[in-house]
Every structure is written in structure tokens, then in C-alpha cells.
């Protein structure tokens, strides 16, 4: 593993590899190596040594840091100014057994936590990037201002491209003031369909619900509930949280009596939801994330129980977390359930044999796939960056 000391050394390493036509496996701290498909490359290149916050203007709500900066370092810096990362990115330690994640890795994977449902994904808060393309050229995309409309949106293309288009070397993010307090309305004992209906009502309410998850009994037990629970989070100034959780509980009365969880109970609970702690994923199990219309989440979750898969719902029902045996049959069942609801799936974590044997994300329709190939070629004409990570042959 080579870990260049700065951006220009990293660019030089890529240029050398490009000249030799040598594929590179790109990593930050390598926490998500078990995500998606295994990369076929003789050599690995890491951004781990590109560290440090290069600009933080709390007044401007903007932070810029090098890609290898560990996420906890960034979270601590913004917390010291009473701010937070809007998309609430997960800590990979729970699922991948390694940490900490780097900023570049989180952005390259476009990973977002529960707040995604109300405030958008990681991608929505990336204002600008620096990156090195597959020819070893340093690119700037976006900037530091809050809206930018000039030119094609390379910034959004690179976010979530999993290191297959360019190696991100620096990220400029929008941050926001952190809420003073957190509260949760918890409705116990509902089945998934009723639970998601309650979450839809909560999200449609005027109380500014910032997260909405449903945990079936088994998942709920892992975070200390005796029954299945539907959870709606409110983050605000302290008096507002008290008032709003109360009003929300009253509005949801038709779904049964609700418990209100205070700040001290809510913070660790949502951190657990963020990191997929309610998922019963043994070391040999595979983990999937299915995205569907929120109202279709319960059907996917319930329907997959017979295939030996268990999980929970986040994003109001729109994100189905699943864990189960790492077999082709289980994978096929997940894909079928997601497709039947018009949704998409990601084989999020799996032992290599399964990841290498199946499509880890839905194959694109031919016309779309040809655009994907062309976009790839525009950034990485020799195809040396993370080949095969998303699709075989790309």
C-alpha cells in the first residue's frame, strides 16, 4: 500500500500507474474494503496521509479538509463550534469492524445517516472537491459558495463514485449549527405497515422531524426496547423539543400511546440506528441496503423474512437494512424484492466469494450503462482507478 504524503505525490503516483496501465485499488483507511465488489489491482493507493482541516469558517458554515482526515477529527472540530455534519455519516466500526473512516471515503461512498430523510445526503452538502483523475491530473470541482450553477456538476458525479472516476484529495462541506437538544417519540408494538404509516404522519407533520425509523421486535431488542418500535426524532432548541415531541405524540394518538425519550436517551439511540447496530449481522453474514418508496419498505422487510433475512427500516421506511446468509439465493431474494417495489439494492457488505459472484448494485439499462462507461472514460481513460468496484469490467 502506498500512501503519498501530499496531493502532488499522489498525482504523480497515478500518472505513473496510468503510463504503465496498472490498476490501482483506492482507499482512505480501508474501512470499507468489504463494501461492494472486490477490486482487481496489484497495487493499492491510500489517501491516509493527506490529513488536516485546511479551512474552517464557522461563520460561513463551511469546512474544508484533506481527504485522509479521520471523520472523528472533523466531528470534534465542528462540535467545538456548536456545529455538526448535516448528513450524519455513519461510523463503519459497527459493520466493518474497522475505523475510523476518512472524510474522502465517506464522500466517495456518499454515506449518510438517519438525518438524510429530512436534510439530504452527504452529496447534497459537498460544495467543492479537489481530486486527481485517472491520468494523474488535479481537478477542482465546485467551490466554497453555497450554490453554484456554472458548468457541469462534476462535484456530484465524484461524490458516490467510489473512487472509480478520480481520487478525492480534499473536500469542502457545508455544515450547520448543531441542535441544542434531541427528543424522540417512540410508538411501541406496531407492525411494520402501521409503524411506517405513523412515521409518514410524523414526517408530514409541521414539527420538523429529522429522522424516522422502524425497528421490528428483534432489532428493537438490540437497542433496549421490549417490543417493535416506530421512532421519530426532533432536534431543536430545548424548549421547542419538549413542546414539539408533546404535540407530535398527541397527533399520533391514533397509533396508540407513545413514550417520549429525552436527550440523554435519544442521542445514543440514533447513533445506534445510524451505525446499523440494530442489525443482527454475524461476521459471516452479508448486509444489504434496499432503497424503495417509504410506503413500500414494510413489504420488502416482511417479505424477506422467509428467506432468513432480518433487518429494520430507516428514512421513514425508504431504507431497508437487511442482514442474512451470504448466499446467492439470499441475494437473489433481496434483488427480487427490491425490484418488485421499483426500488434499488446494494450488497453493502459481504464476504468476497459472494461479492465477486453477483451484481452488487442493479445493472443499468443499456443506454444508461453506455453513459456510465463514457463518463468513466472521460475521467479515467485507462480504466486504472478501482476497476470492477461497481460493475464488472468498469
Amino acid at each position, binding site marked *: 500500500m502506498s500512501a503519498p504524503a501530499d496531493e502532488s505525490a499522489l498525482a504523480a503516483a497515478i500518472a505513473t500507474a496510468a503510463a504503465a496501465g496498472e490498476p490501482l485499488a483506492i482507499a482512505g483507511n480501508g474501512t470499507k474494503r468489504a463494501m461492494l465488489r472486490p477490486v482487481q489491482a496489484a497495487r493499492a493507493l491510500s489517501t491516509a496521509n493527506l490529513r488536516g482541516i485546511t479551512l474552517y*469558517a464557522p*461563520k*460561513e*458554515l*463551511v469546512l474544508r479538509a484533506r481527504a485522509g482526515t479521520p471523520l472523528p477529527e472533523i466531528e470534534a472540530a465542528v462540535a467545538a463550534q456548536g456545529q455538526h455534519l448535516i448528513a450524519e455519516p455513519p461510523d463503519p466500526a459497527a459493520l466493518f469492524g474497522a475505523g475510523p473512516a476518512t472524510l474522502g471515503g465517506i464522500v466517495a461512498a456518499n454515506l*449518510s445517516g438517519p438525518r*438524510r*430523510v429530512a436534510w*439530504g445526503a452527504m*452529496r*447534497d452538502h459537498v460544495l467543492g472537491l479537489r481530486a486527481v*483523475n485517472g491520468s494523474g*491530473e*488535479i*481537478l*477542482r*470541482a465546485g*467551490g*466554497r*459558495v*453555497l*450554490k*453554484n*450553477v*456554472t*458548468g*457541469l*456538476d*462534476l462535484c456530484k*458525479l465524484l461524490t*458516490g*463514485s467510489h473512487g472509480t*472516476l478520480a481520487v478525492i484529495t480534499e473536500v469542502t462541506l457545508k455544515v450547520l*449549527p448543531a*441542535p441544542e437538544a434531541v427528543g424522540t417519540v417512540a410508538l411501541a408494538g406496531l407492525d411494520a405497515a402501521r409503524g411506517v404509516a405513523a412515521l409518514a404522519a410524523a*414526517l*408530514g*407533520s*409541521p414539527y420538523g422531524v429529522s429522522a424516522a425509523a422502524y425497528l421490528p421486535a428483534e432489532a428493537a431488542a438490540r437497542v433496549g426496547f421490549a417490543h417493535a418500535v416506530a421512532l421519530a426524532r426532533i432536534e*431543536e432548541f430545548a424548549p*421547542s423539543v419538549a413542546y*414539539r415531541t408533546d404535540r407530535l405524540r398527541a397527533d399520533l394518538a391514533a397509533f396508540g400511546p407513545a413514550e417520549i425519550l429525552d436527550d440523554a436517551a435519544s442521542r445514543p439511540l440514533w447513533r445506534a440506528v445510524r451505525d446499523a447496530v440494530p442489525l443482527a449481522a454475524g461476521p459471516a453474514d452479508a448486509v444489504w*441496503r434496499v*432503497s424503495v*418508496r*417509504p*410506503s413500500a419498505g414494510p413489504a420488502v422487510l416482511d417479505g424477506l423474512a422467509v428467506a432468513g433475512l432480518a433487518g429494520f427500516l430507516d428514512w421513514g421506511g*425508504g*431504507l431497508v437494512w437487511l442482514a442474512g446468509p451470504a448466499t446467492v439465493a439470499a441475494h437473489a431474494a433481496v434483488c427480487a424484492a427490491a425490484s418488485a417495489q*421499483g426500488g*434499488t439494492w446494494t450488497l453493502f457488505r459481504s464476504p468476497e466469494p459472494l461479492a465477486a459472484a453477483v451484481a452488487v*448494485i442493479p445493472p*443499468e*439499462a443499456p*443506454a*444508461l450503462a453506455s*453513459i456510465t462507461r*463514457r*463518463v468513466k472514460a*472521460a475521467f479515467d481513460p485507462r480504466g486504472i482507478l478501482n476497476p470492477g468496484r461497481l460493475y464488472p469490467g468498469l
Partner: protein
Amino acid sequence: MATPLETVIAAARDLLGERLSTNATLREHHSHGQDTQPPHLPDAVAFVETTAEVARILALCHTHGVPVVPWGAGTSLEGHVTPVRGGITLDLSRMTRILATSQEDMDCRVEAGVTRDQLNTHLRDAGLFFPVDPGTAACTLGGMCATRASGTNAVRYGTMRENVLGLTVVLADGRVIRTGGRVRKSSTGYDLTRLFIGSEGTLGVITEVGLRLHGIPEAISSATCQFDDLRAAVETVITVMQSGIPVARIEFLDEVQIAASIAYSKLTGLEAKPTLFFEFHGTEASVAEQAAQAEAIARDYGAHGFRWATDPAERAKLWQARHDALWAALALKPGYQGLTTDSIVPISALAEAVLGTKADIAASGVTAAVVGHVGDGNFHTVILVPPGPEGLAQAWELDKKIVARALALGGSCSGEHGVGLGKREFLEQEHGAEALAVMRSIKQTLDPRGVMNPGKMFLN
């Protein structure tokens, strides 16, 4: 032998009949947007009604190498729709079907020609609304996607970029693709949806748009306040944003603009002084609380004349006045054209940028009003262009100065209007040669014959 253009026009007429027009008045109407770029006539205008028709026309134009310019409502401000190389203007304004709306999933799918007014009227009964509100109600959702539009609500709800779930796009060669989907975390592969958002008709034609919707807030309140000093107004904005008050709209109008709006929109109780307009969305209680916090901050900075409007009619009048700011400014100098600048800077540099702009205006001798979505550092200067070529040259020179300052302060030449013809020269400075080369390479590979809105975005 027929020229390629004649061949395309004949075949398009077979397909569309009367809806393919070479009528002089219609071509004149499609020769420019709402800008000061020199007009240029298209050779024909095609009023398409379905994705299939768009696909047929694009395939034709691609085969014969004839330029195609997509047209929504022609409201764009940088010469985006001017067919500088002639060819076919593809008018999508008849594609106005609302295909699906889901209250429980808070989303909808519409054809590209649906206007934001039409959509919001349709959604009202469902208790939903679509928040992106550029200052013209006529624009289409397809055009808003293509220009990556935003508006006064962007600080709270985001821009088109954050509110589009997926698209149906016809590529240059006539192939139809569907990007994204109905699901929130839609893209598992590359985010091709976002590639088309802001592509200004240079990569393909958007025919359908999936949108994320929002619940109509239970309570809304608006306020105005005034300052003796522009810097105090800007500091108020920065402090409000930083304090975490979830303000829905925060708009700045300088003394020239507010004077124009007082006259044009018959606003009462306001003076010709730097002014802020606020709006808060939420519950009755939270709106009152947010408003009190914002008022306290503003008063700390010396604001006076605080006025609250919770009555819907009064509020509507206020925001109509904000939306009519351009027309109000134009009414200051009858017979003058307007040139609107669109720079955006880091919010910490906003006071410096606006004060510098005011100094440039004073030095230039032209009249100009400053108005902006200051919550994100974006402000417009409406330059009143004196008639005649000299006046236009003067206005462009002022525009360039304003852009240069924004770039020097780490900002951009455009926060929402886009590149079109007018801002092409700044693209390289802003993004660097390498990023521009990647953009060109994507353009080249998706539109190898260069028929999609040629001459826009890139200088060549």
C-alpha cells in the same frame, strides 16, 4: 438536392404537421430569452407533445447534423435559448401533464413543460408544495432543471439539485434514458441525474421530472426591517444563519431597489433604506419563536421599523413585491433594458462584495439596484442599461467588474442563472483547465456531433 436542414424540416413536418412552424413571428419569439444577448432566429420551431416525438426529432437532427435548442418558457437570463447556429428550437411548453402525485411518499412526476405555478396549484389540495421559486412564475420545471434554478426558499429547502429525484432524458442521438427513480437514495451508480441538472440543454432534452415535495407549513410569518447601514443588514443575515434559526427566506433589498418596489408594488410603511425581508415556516409556536429570535438579532444590529405580516394577503403582497423586483427596477427608467448580475460569494465576504459593487455602480454612472438571496451569499445587481450600444457596453463592463470581485473573493460568477452565452469566459478561471477539459470530454462523448444547444456553456 435538399440541404440537411431542409431534410430535417420536411421530416419533422411529416411527424408534427402544423406543430412544426417556420412562421416568422414564432421564430422571432424564439430568437432570444430574457437577456441582452443579440437575438438569432431558429430556422423552425417544433412544438413537441411526447417523449417519443422528442426522440424522433433528436435522432433526425443528430443524423443530419442540425442544431437543436430546447426551449421551456424562454425566461433564462444569459442567452441560453438563443439559437446562435440556427436549426430547430424544440418547444416543450405543451408537455404539461402531471403524471403522478403521491401524498404519502411526498413526490410527483411531471412532464418538462409543467410550470411551477401549474404544479403548485395542482398540489394545494393535497397539502403539499414544491418550494423552488425563481423570480418568474412562467418558467417550466424542465427549464428549471436545465438551469439548476433556485429562489428565495433555497436556504431552507435547497435548489433544483436537491429536489429532483429522477429524470427522463432524450440523448442527442434520440435514445431515451431514465435516471434516478422515486426512491430517496436513488442512484447506486454514478449520479447521472445531477449531471443533467444544470446542463443547459447541452447534453440532452429532459422530458419528465420526478420531484420531491414538501408539506405546506402549518404556520408562516413574514417580517420586514430596515437599517441605516448596509453592513448592519448583512451582519444580521450572517448571525441569523449561524444561530441555527431555520429561516425559510431571507432577502436583501438595497435603498435603490426598495424605493423602486415601494413605488411599483405600492408598499407602505417602508423607507428608502437597506431592507431585509424574512419568512419563517413551522408550527404556530415555532414561527413565533424563530421570529422573536431573528428580531432580537436584527435589533442588536440597529434594525428599526420591524413589521410582522402573518395575514396571508399582506404576506402575499410582500413576496409579490420581491418577485416583481426586476419589473420595479425597470420602471425606474422607462425604455431601458435590464441586465441582471448573479454573483455569489462566501457569506463572510458578502458585505465586502455588496459594498464594492455599490462603489462600482456609483463610479460607472449607471443606475442599478441590488437585491439578493443573501442567506447563501447570492445577490443580483439589476443594471438599467441606457439605450444604444454604448449603454450596453457600459453595463457589461460593470457586470465584469462585479464578477471579477466575486471570483477574487472565492465566489462564482453565477449562483443561479447559469452560463449560457454570457458567462462562458469565466468558466475556466472558476474551475481550472483540467476540470473544464473533463466537462468538454463528457459533452463530446454524449453529443459527438455537437448538435445540442451548440455554442453554450463552452467557448469554442
